[in-house]
């Protein structure tokens, strides 16, 4: 089952596809120029010791961004079917 969640909610090593970036202005521009545009495949590499920032693999490189920024990125992920 596919589901759209925010990047900051993704767990380590989870993969997904970016569907929408709601950040605007300078922030939106910076995310886009680093390649975070819709339909980009990403994977969470890990998180810093205090669980923030988050390291993301995309387009063959590793990008780090704060949870705050990761909150504005919506990613489609595969979630296992659960009972309910």
């Amino acid at each position: 089952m596919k589901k759209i969640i925010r990047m900051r909610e993704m767990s380590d090593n989870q993969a997904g596809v970016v569907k929408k970036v709601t950040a605007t202005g300078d922030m939106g521009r910076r995310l886009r120029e680093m390649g975070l545009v819709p339909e980009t495949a990403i994977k969470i590499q890990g998180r810093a010791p205090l669980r923030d920032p988050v390291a993301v693999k995309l387009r063959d490189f590793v990008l780090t961004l704060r949870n705050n920024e990761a909150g504005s990125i919506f990613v489609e992920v595969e979630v296992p079917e659960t009972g309910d």
Partner: protein
Amino acid sequence: MRNSQIRFAGPVPMKQKITIALSGNPNAGKTTVFNAITGAWQHIANYPGVTVEKKYGTVIHQGREIEVVDLPGTYSLTAYSLEELVARNFVIDERPDLVVDIVDASSLERHLYLAVQFKELGVPLVIALNMMDLAESRGIIVDVQALSEQFGAPVVPMVARSNRGIQDLLDTVVSAADEKPRWEPAPISYGMDIDQAIKRISAIIDRSQIYDRKYPSWWRALKCLEMDSEITKLLKRDPPLGQEIEAICEEIYKHTMSTLEEEPEAIIADHRYGYIAGIVKKAVRRKIESRINLSDKIDKVLTNRIIGPFIMIAVLYGMYSFTFLASELPIRWLEIFFDRLASVALNVIPAGPFQSLIVSGVIRGVGGVLGFVPLIMFMFFAIAIMEDSGYMARIAYMLDRVLRWFGLHGNSVIGLIVSGGISGGCAVPGVLATRVLRDPKERLATLLVIPFMNCGAKLPVYALLIGAFFSGDKARIMFLLTVLSWLFALFAAKILRATILKGPKTSFVMELPPYRAPTLRGLLIHTWERTWQYIKKAGTVILAFSVVLWAMMTFPRLSEHQIAGFEKEREKLTDAFLQSSDIRGLIRSREDMAALHDVVFGGKDREAVGKAFPDNPVLGRVARAAFDLEHGGVGRETWDPAILEAASRYLVFKKQISKQEQLRQQAAIKGTIAGRIGTGLEAVTRPLGFEYRTNIALLGGFAAKEVVVSTLGTAYSLGEVDPEETASLSERLQKDPAWNPLQAFTLIVFTMLYVPCIATVVSIRRETSWAWAGFSMFFNLLVAYAVSLTIRQIGLALGF
């Protein structure tokens, strides 16, 4: 086409110089390519009016002079960061013959994003496809021919760090410059809505008279839709047409927001990536089975949430140990060198104010600074290893959350470490290292707290005081001071960010570049660049300040009257000595005394002393006895009691004289300008326990912190007087009743925090303004005073 005509005309004279601009994302290997092309022949300046560094150099290739300008590393060409604007304006205004865009083959898509923007602008472009080895090891196979055809620009595969492909690149540059010097904007499609809007806007621009033709109108129209501040501000200057354009932008904005829920700018970016994806699809193949990503594996360990921080501490501690171990010997050599230089100057230059200027002002002042070059150099070498390998970015990543709490940024850590975060850097390059920070307030906060770190120049002050008062816990106290400097810096930043530098949290969007083994050449160049900044300050600012300081500590001299007073006192002591009953007949005249002084204190060995007075055996025996008494050799001979008594009386007399000499020097220094200022400041510094001599030393420390030690030395009248006593300023302080461990610790903390040295203040001004540089001095002084006062008062209350 101008060059191609000449090309077919047979043998030609030297053709025109070719100018190329090197561009590329940070971490694409731009610096490596630049160094490989230009070698040692490079210059560093700033782009006019801004603090962005401009490096350029020239190379002769195929008999052609190629000037290479290193543009700042950027991901894009917007007007929203200084670096990007500088890069863009250089290309537009200076019109280099070619832009060489350095692209990392191992993450081609993102790197081509910048290249696409150059294509939009229409610049003649060459793509340097760097890091081919890394791409191959990751199973990414780039078809160079296909990429070149798809992109419409020459592509040169290379591995810049091992010098592969550099010659090919230069060949391509020469032939491309000869063939295609024209600008051809190569529009790509951004979807129907945007494309049409671009057409409408560029038609309006073409009608207008106010625009120069430096930019293609198509490109200008695109930038209007992207709401590029640099371009849209021109619209205001052209009311009717400008408003028309603004209306179109507004219309498109509303349209895309309602239909696609995206700003035009986002749609444009999507299409650029779409365009790139099309190219990459045709030019890149992946061998999935051989895909090993070593860098990711290393990161699993080095940035691991639990062990990562421990490894980081170990790495930083390792750097610290390496620096101190490696620089210990060279520092000693330099000390010896400057001591020799000073003694040569003492011998060659006749005694007088000029000798004093050269020895005390120039050699001691500049020597004190240059003496630490090895320490600084090894520290920068270690930092360069961390930067070039990619580890520094991981430190910023791991510490961002911590630094953010204090209102700083992950990238602030680079400036803090370079300035002495692990003891022994220099704040001057540290100030420059804050340029990576984009937010002006975060950058200012970092700049202002950087001088709190324990730079290499503060270490001699610590070493002196720790040696004198805490010799048992040297390592522990040094560690404590490192921790303290971080705490002060971080909390000061927090206070600044909560008050005068209040502002929203910014973003942290940073690439973790792949780990790479640094090249020796790259390390040496980085180390040298920063070390040179330190040496330059010794040659200029510090030289000037040493001379001023020397003058302040020398003039006005004691008056004739005062000198005569001391002289008279000395004569009286001498007469009393010569006429005392124990001496009469044994030491007869002042000539005898002068000869005796030379023999006993002249650094001779015992045998030479014995042979010194062939004509006066009595004096010879006194000399030997005094020598033995002075050098702890009593009992070697059986002495006549009268001789022994005379010898010990003589030594007592010498002590009186040197005591008197110290009083004279103290009176002299107290009377100088610096002495008067220092005495005047006692009113303010008394609560800290600093008397005039410490104040003078701290004034001197404004030139450079290490000057505190040498000035204390002069102020406590050591060094110049008796060669045997030079050893121990630290002993001297130990014996002084005004000094105790609490006093020493107060001075250490004050030195750590007070006014940054003049070179740092000048650097801060260059990066900001005189107002901020002035504020930095005031703020640091305030912090230093408050903290030192607290420490001393608590210490006193606890009974230290």
